[in-house]
């Protein structure tokens, strides 16, 4: 079956396709936010890190943001700040920023400071920093629970709702339904990528209902994609016909694991122990998980944002590990935020060469 039009629209319009109705909108910037727990409080979640696709052509550009955003600031943070300053999120009740997201802390601090200085309007959503640590040490677990208690206070204040046992159970059930449907999608292909990610701007049950079986068009050499966050299916499009993407380990590429946790504590533990989060601690956990996921690939393709600080430190070691397993490794280097046709053509040519 082809991709449902509603999924394509949600994927393309993103937060711009949402308007506050009866359910308050809660923006999420970055991975690692306990979304199901927020949903249990009555918020409708929406990713605000990835801008609408049209933003690349006609997105707002606000002088106050240009004045303070360094040219080496993460592009997701920059686009968020321009949109924030232009009022794109004025209908939102709250935006939760993941501190451990590569762009999350800067986006939060810059937005907060722009507002404090009166450089942007003061109305709009409350801004909140979610500090969860990606480790399971005893001090971190205590800290994460304290952070959750702090988040609950904020959610009660902003959303007015209380997450009782029933609302939590309902939210978990809706998310489980979505994840079960997601698990049936193929990993490979741009349609699957869009279908998965459309859920970032949809209620879980709506999303699950629209997810139908998509043909698994992938065949040929097994490809693993690694690198920094990529919110568009550019790498899947480039790989089409050249091989099958068996795993996309970049942010926005990964498939959420089936949810089995039923308590806030377990949900937080599950999030904090994600070994493929780049701030997973101890840091060896990330390296090991990356190598394990890349094992079995015929080709691993790396590409990073030019402002990358972190992932690039993994590339030589990953190359060595992949090649030791008999696989091939292609480092495409810097990937523009919105790659043009020339970049795509060059990347495809290099992938063809790597597979030859």
């Amino acid at each position: 079956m082809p991709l449902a039009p509603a999924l394509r629209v949600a994927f393309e319009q993103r937060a711009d396709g949402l308007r506050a109705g009866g359910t308050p909108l809660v923006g999420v910037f970055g991975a690692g936010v306990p979304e199901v727990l927020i949903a249990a409080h009555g918020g409708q979640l929406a990713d605000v890190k990835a801008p609408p696709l049209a933003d690349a052509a006609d997105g707002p550009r606000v002088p106050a943001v240009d004045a303070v955003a360094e040219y080496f600031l993460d592009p997701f943070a920059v686009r968020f700040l321009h949109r924030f300053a232009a009022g794109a999120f004025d209908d939102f009740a709250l935006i939760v920023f993941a501190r451990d997201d590569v762009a999350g802390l800067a986006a939060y601090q810059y937005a907060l400071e722009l507002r404090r200085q009166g450089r942007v309007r003061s109305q709009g959503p409350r801004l909140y920093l979610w500090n969860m640590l990606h480790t399971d040490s005893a001090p971190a677990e205590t800290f994460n629970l304290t952070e959750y208690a702090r988040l609950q206070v904020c959610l009660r204040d902003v959303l007015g709702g209380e997450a009782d046992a029933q609302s939590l159970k309902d939210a978990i059930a809706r998310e489980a339904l979505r994840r079960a449907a997601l698990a049936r999608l193929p990993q490979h292909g741009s349609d699957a990528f869009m279908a998965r990610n459309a859920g970032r701007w949809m209620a879980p049950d709506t999303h699950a209902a629209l997810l139908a079986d998509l043909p698994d068009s992938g065949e040929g050499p097994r490809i693993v994609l690694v690198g920094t966050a990529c919110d568009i299916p550019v790498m899947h499009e480039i790989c089409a016909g050249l091989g099958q993407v068996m795993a996309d380990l970049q942010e926005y590429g990964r498939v959420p694991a089936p949810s089995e946790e039923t308590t806030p504590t377990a949900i937080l533990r599950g999030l904090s122990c994600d070994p493929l989060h780049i701030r997973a601690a101890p840091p060896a956990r990330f390296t090991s998980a990356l190598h394990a996921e890349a094992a079995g690939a015929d080709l691993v393709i790396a590409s990073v944002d030019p402002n990358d600080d972190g992932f690039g430190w993994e590339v030589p070691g990953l190359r060595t590990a992949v090649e030791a397993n008999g696989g091939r490794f292609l480092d495409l280097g810097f990937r523009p935020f919105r790659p043009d046709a020339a970049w795509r053509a060059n990347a495809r040519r290099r992938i063809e060469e790597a597979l030859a």
Partner: protein
Amino acid sequence: MICAKRATDYQRDWLRGLRQRISGGEAYAFVNADTPHELFHFMDIPMVTNQWWSAVISAKQLAPSYFDRMEELGFHGHLPRYSSLPLIAQIEGDFDRQPWGGLPPPSLLCARASSDEHARIFQRWSELSGAPLHMLSAPGVPNPEPRWWEQARDGWEAFYGTDRLDLLVAEMQEVIAQLEDLTGRAFPADGFGAYMERIDRQERMLDEVSTMMAEAPKTPMRISEQMPNVMIPQWHRGSDWALAHVEAFRDEVEARVRDGHAACENERIRMMWIGAGLWFDTSFYSAFEESHGAVFAWSMYLPFAADGYIRADHGDPLRALAARVSAMNEQLHQPPWVNEWMVEQARRYRIEVALMLVPEHDRFSGYGSNFAREALKAAGVRVVEIVSDMVDPRDWDGDAVKAQVTAVLDEVTG
């Protein structure tokens, strides 16, 4: 200054001793600058600081070849450099040409997750050396009050947050346990409070020096003299030598001010250097004295010794140490802290021109630069942005930068 020479002489001797200890097989720790060095000093564990070692390698003009090598190894060219230069030197392993003949493998590694690269760089160190790595967490302060230097000295519990301090204390206790294992000695907790009190005393004297520098009619010393007199005792903070040295330093500056001594007799413009040192060309700091009477009166190391370090212990010295460390780097680089502090310092020191090092590859250190620039301009300070790097001279064009600064100084002097 007499003191500056004493400090560099002491450091040279001390480093010789450290090198002998390390070369002799004694365990040592390799740590990042924003970690609790106090724990290592107090347990008498030799310690080498990543960023300091980076500066030493850079001062030996070795950075270009290592950064070229870094890209040959497959690390991309936009990765941070200040924190990674020692790693690349270690990977390269050409110890014969490195300062001291290079570093042997450390026994312990410690860094803070204050920026994304630290964990990754130190993980590579751990793989290379086999040493265990202690990563200290760095959660953000959710509601950062702008005037941090007013609250952090005494009211740090509320300012940094009880949960963040609890976390760091618990993580430091894990480091202490590791140090106890390494040394076979118990952490003498009873004496730690007195040690912390000595550090506070040292920082208060540096605070006095900072006030003298700010209020003196003419700048009594260059920042090239400030740096050894501040950074070397900071390295040894709390030791007998450090306290004695800072006291002598304070007295010498006091005498200079009393005697009307000026680092630049023709002083007409007071400047501030924002950012870490320009370690590969420290002569730059006096480049504009003769031509424009422009003297650097301010670098962060002196005033930060007070604002960044003085923390009342409130009966819990380990927690006071957590308060010192828990946002150490962030206060220098993140809004609103960096912009508010820069303006405060510029006013205090009567600064007319600020030179701001914008290290585009060390983005964590570069963030907040534009907020600081805008705030300084709004406060009437002219800002010259220098896009360069603390340790990598490959893109440094000294003549072009001097021309850039000269143009602004010409405007000021009319």
